[in-house]
């Protein structure tokens, strides 16, 4: 046997190739359970609430939000940054772990990529409704027009955002689809009913398993992974530029790009954990998404949580060290001012939660990991809220100081974005192979057990 024989197997339950195909396709082929219907109806209800809120605010105007002259960005941009961040873990798992040859990614990468796409869709909605006149959203693209032609301002980070998010969504979707083509062919070849055969026949592009094609396919996949890796770093860097290039104390800092990227991966992995723990339980995937997978993800959370902690500390240190009174005030106001509750929720969830993962018994306890992952999600939402609102609400002129509280429209929109996310995800696991069969099959013999067929 080769030197991999000491490692634990990637997939439990002594599966062979046929088992993998049957197990993964069975999720789509069997009737949905009552749990799925429960989840789907909850998600759909949340989505409807979101649609009502968004329709109302578009018809009435964004005066329906709790924003005022001082706090011009709040819930909406918080949600935008939160959702973009969630997406980052998917690309990290599918691209960066691929480049590092981390074989354990194979059973979670498909659903993590799907999560990326849905999260970026959720994120994209917020800047569009924030425009107030979303029917003119196409103005953000540079296209020849009769207004001069008047082009967009390429020196603005908001214009960079359009390109970063747009490219990210496109490349993620292409990466996801290309990765799925062989599996779509597997589904096509075992489909019994005509509609399914037709549908997957179209989507699978005539894939037939030819090794000459597989060989080129591997090259394409590696190239896409290589492109997606700097892309994912650039996306949250550009999002952080929205803040960092302004002159607002609390935003104007050079640590923002790495701070945001680490925070994004941190929150994204928490969301992957939340989703995967639900999926493995409800879809009985314990043999594919094993405790080792969960443990590996919690380790990523320890590292990225550490970077986030370091960033919080650096911000405070630099605020003191700069000798800039405005900067110092913003940070004292963050920790002790009227939004101190939000700040301490953030610190509690993001600094303390990951520390539990130092213990192996906790890393391998699914229930505790699930609860902690939700705390990280909450903490990372509050991080963006704290950065945005506390930096704005007490500005340079004390007579302009004000407070912010969300209206039902804003809360409804946030709930609606979760509804959209979970509706899409639940539909995805019922219609597409949610585990990459082709890649799982390639790691089945990873122990070097050549005799098993």
């Amino acid at each position, binding site marked *: 046997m080769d030197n991999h024989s000491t490692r634990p197997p990637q997939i439990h339950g002594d599966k062979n190739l046929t088992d993998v195909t049957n197990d993964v396709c069975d999720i789509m082929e069997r009737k949905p359970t009552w749990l799925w219907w429960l989840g789907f109806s909850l998600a759909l209800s949340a989505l409807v609430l979101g649609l009502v809120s968004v329709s109302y605010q578009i018809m009435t105007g964004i005066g329906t939000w709790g924003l005022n002259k001082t706090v011009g960005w709040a819930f909406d941009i918080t949600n935008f940054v939160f959702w973009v961040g969630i997406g980052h873990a998917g690309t990290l798992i599918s691209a960066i772990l691929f480049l590092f040859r981390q074989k354990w990614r194979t059973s979670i990468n498909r659903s993590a990529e799907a999560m990326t796409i849905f999260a970026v869709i959720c994120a994209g909605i917020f800047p569009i409704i924030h425009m107030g006149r979303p029917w003119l959203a196409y103005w953000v693209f540079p296209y020849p027009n009769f207004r001069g032609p008047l082009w967009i301002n390429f020196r603005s980070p908001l214009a960079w955002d359009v390109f970063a998010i747009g490219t990210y969504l*496109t490349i993620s979707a292409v990466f996801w689809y*290309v990765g799925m083509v062989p599996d779509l062919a597997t589904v096509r070849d075992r489909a019994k009913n005509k509609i399914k055969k037709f549908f997957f026949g179209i989507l699978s592009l005539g*894939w037939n398993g030819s090794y000459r094609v597989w060989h080129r396919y591997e090259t394409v996949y590696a*190239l896409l992974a290589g492109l997606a890796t700097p892309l994912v770093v650039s996306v949250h860097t550009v999002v952080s530029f929205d803040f960092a290039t302004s002159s607002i104390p609390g935003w104007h800092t050079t640590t923002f790009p790495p701070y945001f990227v680490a925070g994004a991966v941190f929150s994204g992995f928490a969301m992957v954990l939340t989703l995967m723990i639900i999926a493995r339980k409800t879809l009985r995937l314990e043999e594919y998404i094993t405790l080792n997978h969960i443990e590996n993800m919690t380790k990523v959370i320890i590292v990225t949580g550490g970077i986030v902690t370091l960033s919080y500390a650096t911000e405070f240190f630099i605020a003191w060290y700069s000798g800039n009174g405005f900067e110092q005030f913003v940070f004292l106001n963050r920790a002790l001012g009227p939004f101190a509750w939000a700040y301490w929720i953030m610190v509690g969830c993001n600094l303390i939660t990951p520390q539990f993962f130092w213990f192996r018994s906790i890393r391998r306890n699914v229930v505790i990991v699930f609860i902690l992952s939700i705390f990280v999600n909450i903490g990372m939402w509050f991080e963006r809220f704290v950065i945005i609102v506390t930096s704005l609400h007490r500005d340079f002129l004390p007579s302009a100081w004000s407070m912010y509280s969300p209206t039902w429209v804003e809360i409804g929109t946030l709930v609606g974005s979760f509804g959209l996310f979970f509706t899409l995800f639940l539909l995805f696991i019922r219609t597409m192979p949610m585990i990459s069969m082709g890649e799982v099959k390639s790691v089945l013999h990873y122990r070097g057990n050549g005799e098993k067929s």
Partner: protein
Amino acid sequence: MTERLQVAEFRNEYDLIDAVSAVRESGVEIVDAYTPFAVHGLDKAMGLKKSRLNQVCFMFAFLGLTIGVLGQYWVSAINWPINIGGRPWNSLPAFMPVAFEVTVLFAGLGTVFSFFAWRKLKYGKQSLQPSLRATNDRFYLVMKQGQQRKSNSTVSEIIHVHHGEMVDA
């Protein structure tokens, strides 16, 4: 005249790789292999050349970068220059994020569509494969039929040695 082919079925990838090497040594030409996943090491056994898609990707990336930089320069400095906060018409450092994104977009889409075009993968195409199990749990090796009867029997012997089975194509 269409060429006559012979097909062998295998139950795992190790047998397939060994058989491929043995069949090639015996002088029989291999048309293709059909596998449910990307078998590592099979490309070396089959003697496949390195893909040219790497160069294609680079060319598309370069094209994207050129369009990204020159496009922004043309828009901001030539076609309709606007004074924004006294920034220079050609604000090259500020153009870099968009130029980078356009580079990645071109490289990614260009590579994928070149691959689809080269390998003739398109929507709704009928798939041609030795068996429906080629996308599930079996490995197939497609070889050219030799001229003499003698070499054909050696091929089936080689296949049997490597736990394979000859099947009708």
